[in-house]
């Protein structure tokens, strides 16, 4: 049985079709990189898997069961972190452990500290989000999701809102999680990172999977022309920025 199974997933907003029939099977321990031009439906796919956006047709199942938001099957890390500004890092992580998992305060705090330690932030547990850098905030958000032990972890452009020098610390955390066997789907524009991290890369365009395969295949001359074109503009843009 696959950890995550997406079947014939459709989503539309008004007359616009955002996703048109996505099929995706993810085995436990896999790290799936999702790439594609903006507007191709990458974020929508993650949001539908998480249950945040309604789906028009098709199904999403985690370990064979349909999911709904909040059941703990799927965790998601957002581009904008979405930490709660009035709570400290520890409280951000511990809140759901206490209210949803019904853990006693002490145990919830201990688990929160452990999750923060896992992302290298044990020392900053008492700080509020405003007193943390963007990279640190994103790591707290990862810890908050990790502490609930989801079966599948979704990353929606986790470094897109960060200054370039702060992306490394976040990417390192995600790499460590993947190496530890966490099942994950990562939407990212950091092509080098995706190539190094993913066991499989999925290229989306206009709401459909154009091609999916190991990084060596997607990031090569053998890939679909559309993918090569996308990577080409991507590379030239990077080169232009560097020049």
């Amino acid at each position, binding site marked *: 049985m696959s950890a995550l199974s997406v079947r014939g997933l459709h989503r539309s907003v008004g007359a616009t079709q955002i996703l048109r029939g996505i099929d995706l099977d993810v085995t436990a321990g896999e790290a799936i990189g999702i790439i594609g031009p903006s507007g191709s439906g990458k974020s929508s796919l993650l949001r539908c898997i998480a249950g945040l956006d309604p789906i028009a047709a098709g199904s999403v199942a985690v370990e064979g069961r349909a999911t709904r938001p*909040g059941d703990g099957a799927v965790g998601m890390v957002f581009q904008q972190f979405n930490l709660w500004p009035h709570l400290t890092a520890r409280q951000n992580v511990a809140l759901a452990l206490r209210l949803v998992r019904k853990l006693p305060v002490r145990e919830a705090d201990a688990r929160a500290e452990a999750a923060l330690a896992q992302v290298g932030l044990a020392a900053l547990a008492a700080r509020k989000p405003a007193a943390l850098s963007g990279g640190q905030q994103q790591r707290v958000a990862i810890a908050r999701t990790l502490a609930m032990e989801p079966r599948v972890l979704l990353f929606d452009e986790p470094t897109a809102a960060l200054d370039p020098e702060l992306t490394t610390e976040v990417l390192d955390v995600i790499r460590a999680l993947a190496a530890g066997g966490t099942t994950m789907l990562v939407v990212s524009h950091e092509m080098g990172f995706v190539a190094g991290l993913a066991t499989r890369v999925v290229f989306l365009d206009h709401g459909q999977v154009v091609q999916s395969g190991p990084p060596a295949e997607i990031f090569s001359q053998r890939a679909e022309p559309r993918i090569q074109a996308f990577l080409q503009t991507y590379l030239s843009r990077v080169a232009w920025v560097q020049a």
Partner: protein
Amino acid sequence: MMQAFIDSLWATARGLPVTLAIWLAAVVAGMALGFLVGALRFFAPRLVSWPLAALVETVRGVPFLVQCFLLYFGGPFVGIDLSPVMAGFVALSVYGAAYFSEVFRAGFNAVPPGQLEAARLLGLSRPATVWRIMLPVMALGVLPALANLAVILIKETAVLSIITVPELTFRVQGVGTSTFAFAETTLVLALVYWGLVEATAMLARATERRIERALAA
């Protein structure tokens, strides 16, 4: 002339407690009712929220004086026979609630949706999300507006003198009527309100800063 000032101060001493009591009661009741209406307008289905919106717009679109007349003089015709003080309290509470509800609704709207999605994904229940996330996040934002409204309501209490509530304006103007020293009494009245409003505004700002510091720490 000196006598008129002394009489005015004496009238102030009698009227001010009434003004303050009605104001405080109306702020508390208005804020509670306003919170309820604001929350319903944000969370309840349209069948509930639309009539509430119409009600709020009506209360905000009609002069407070006319609302006082409606309740105090018109009320007895539909079985609502209130004393001046009760009518004043009810009218001021309802008037305040309409404005307070708008502040709370704006506060709910201002909570970033992503923070609520995070709560939903982590499995927090609706009440827990409102209580633990929305209220604290919006609290800082709505605080200045709430304080500002409370100060505005102090000034509205003067209107209650017209429906014979024995508050500050009514008492001090009473001295004017009996002594014809209207210039003196009105001057005292203006200075007392000015001081009261400035003092309350200062207190509100100090409280705000304190709460801000407590929440930011």
